[in-house]
C-alpha cells in the first residue's frame, strides 16, 4: 500500500503537467455537471416556494347555512392530504378585498362577496392528480359553488420539474461518461509511459492486484481532486451570480461531499476500465 502511494507520487512528479491536465479536464466536465445541478437545485427550490403558496379554494353559495358549512368542514378534515383548512366568512372576504384593492374602495361599497373555504395540502400531495381528486370531492357538497386551484399553473410547474429532472439525468450521465473516458485516457497514458516498469513487475512476479493498485489510486485521487476543483469552480460561479444577478441556493455540505465522492468514483471506474484493458495487452506481449 505504501509502495503504491509512493508510485503515485512518483508518477505525479515525473509528469506533473499530464496529471494536472487530467485533473483539470475532469474538473471541467464535473463543473459543467455542477452548473446544471445548480440550475436544477434552484428550480427545485423555486418550485417548492411556489408550491407552498398553492391552495385550493372552494367558494360557497350565497346564504350558506352554518350546518352546511360545518358538514363541509368535517368532511374536509377527514381528507388525509389536507394540511390545514380555514373558513373565510363573506364579511372577512370583503374586508380582505378592500385592504388588498384600495383603489377600488368605491366599487366595493355595498358589494357582497361569497364566503369560501381555503385549504392547503401537505408536502408531497400538491401534484395535479391529488388536487383534482380533492376538488371533485369538494364539489359533491351542495354548499360548494365553485372550486379553484389554479389547475394550469400546477400542471405547468410539474411539467417544468419533470423536464428538468429528465434533462438533468441525461446530461448527468453524458458528463459522467465523459469523465470516465477522460480519466481512462490519462491512466492509459500513465500506463504507456510506464510500460517498462509494468513489464519488470510482471517479470519478477508481482501480482495483478499489486500492478493495478497504483493506477486505481491514481485515478481515484485525480477524480477526487477534479471533483473538489469542480465544486470550487461552481461555487465561484454561484458567488458571481448571487452578487450580480439574483440570489441562488448553493449545494449543502452533504451534496458537495457527494459531488467530490462522485468524482472519486468516476476516477476509480475510469482507471479500472483502462487498467483492465491495457494491462491485458502488456501481459500478452511481455
Amino acid at each position: 500500500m505504501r509502495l503504491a502511494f509512493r508510485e503515485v507520487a512518483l508518477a505525479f512528479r515525473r509528469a506533473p503537467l499530464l496529471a494536472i491536465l487530467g485533473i483539470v479536464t475532469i474538473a471541467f466536465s464535473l463543473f459543467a455537471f455542477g452548473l446544471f445541478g445548480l440550475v436544477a437545485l434552484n428550480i427545485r427550490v423555486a418550485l417548492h416556494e411556489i408550491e407552498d403558496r398553492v391552495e385550493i379554494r372552494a367558494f360557497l353559495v350565497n346564504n350558506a347555512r352554518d350546518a352546511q358549512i360545518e358538514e363541509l368542514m368535517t368532511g374536509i378534515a377527514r381528507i388525509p392530504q389536507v394540511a390545514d383548512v380555514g373558513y373565510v366568512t363573506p364579511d372577512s372576504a370583503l374586508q380582505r378585498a378592500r385592504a388588498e384593492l384600495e383603489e377600488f374602495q368605491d366599487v366595493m361599497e355595498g358589494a357582497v362577496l361569497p364566503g369560501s373555504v381555503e385549504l392547503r395540502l401537505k408536502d408531497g400531495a400538491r401534484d395535479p392528480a391529488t388536487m383534482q381528486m380533492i376538488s371533485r370531492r369538494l364539489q359533491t357538497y351542495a354548499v360548494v359553488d365553485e372550486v379553484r386551484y389554479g389547475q394550469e399553473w400546477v400542471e405547468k410547474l410539474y411539467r417544468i420539474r419533470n423536464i428538468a429532472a429528465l434533462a438533468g439525468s441525461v446530461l448527468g450521465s453524458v458528463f459522467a461518461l465523459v469523465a470516465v473516458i477522460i480519466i481512462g485516457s490519462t491512466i492509459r497514458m500513465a500506463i504507456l509511459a510506464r510500460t517498462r516498469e509494468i513489464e519488470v513487475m510482471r517479470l519478477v512476479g508481482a501480482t495483478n492486484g499489486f500492478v493495478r493498485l497504483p493506477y486505481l489510486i491514481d485515478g481515484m485521487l485525480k477524480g477526487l481532486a477534479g471533483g473538489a476543483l469542480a465544486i470550487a469552480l461552481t461555487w465561484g460561479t454561484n458567488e458571481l451570480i448571487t452578487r450580480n444577478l439574483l440570489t441562488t441556493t448553493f449545494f449543502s455540505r452533504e451534496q458537495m461531499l457527494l459531488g467530490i465522492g462522485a468524482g472519486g468514483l468516476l476516477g476509480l471506474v475510469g482507471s479500472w476500465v483502462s487498467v483492465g484493458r491495457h494491462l491485458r495487452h502488456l501481459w500478452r506481449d511481455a
Partner: protein
Amino acid sequence: MAGILRLKQVTKEYPRSGAALRDVSFEIQKGEFVFLAGHSGAGKSTLLKLISMAERPTSGEVRVSGYTSGSITAREIPQLRRRLGIVFQDFRLLADRTAEQNVAFALEVTGTPHVQIRPKVSRLLTQVGLASRATAYPHELSGGEQQRVAIARALVNDPFVLLADEPTGNLDDRATHAIFLLLREINAQGTAVMMATHDVAMIQRSNLRFLELDNGQLVHDGTDVARLVADMRGRR
C-alpha cells in the same frame, strides 16, 4: 530424479506467422546448466515465453516446478514467476533508478518486508560483483555491468531456474565471458540455468548440454557440437 522443467510434445502456433515450435520435448534437472542454441527466429524466445507461462502451448504440455500449462491459473502465474529468474539481451532495467533501486524494486513489488530489502540488495550486488557501483544509474554503467544488475534482480527471489535470453548478445567478448562465468557461478550454487545464445564458440568451449532449435523443431539435445557448428555455418 524428476525434472524441474519439462516440455512434452509442445507445439506453439501463432494465428499469423504459423508454427513457432513443433513437437518439442525435453527435460531439465535440478541444478543443470543447459544452452539453448539456434538462429534468430528458430523459436528460442517462444520457448522461454512458454516456460515463464507468458504464453500457453497450442498443444502439448509445459511443466515448471509443479505448475502445468494446462491448469495454471492467472493468480498462480505471479507465484511461478517468483520461482524463475529471467534475464534479457536488452537488460530491461529502469533507466530512472540506480542499480540498487532496480534490484530493490523487484523485492518491493513482490511484497518483501522493508527491513529485509537493503541487506538482500547489497548481498546480491556483491554476488554479481557490483557492490561499488550500487548508486550508479544504468546509463552510467557498461553493458556488462547493466547485465549484472539484471542478473542480480533476477536472483532476488532465489529462483530454482534462471532463464537467460541471449544475455550476452549486446556485449563484447570480455564482458560476454565474464557474464558466462557469473552464470556458471550461480549455477554452481544450485540454480539451474537455461541460456539462449547463438554463440557457438561459447557452447563449444564449455562442453555442456545444449538444445538446438531449427525452424521450431528440436534437432539436437546433447553435447555434439560438431553438428551445431555445421548447422550454424550453413545457415549464415
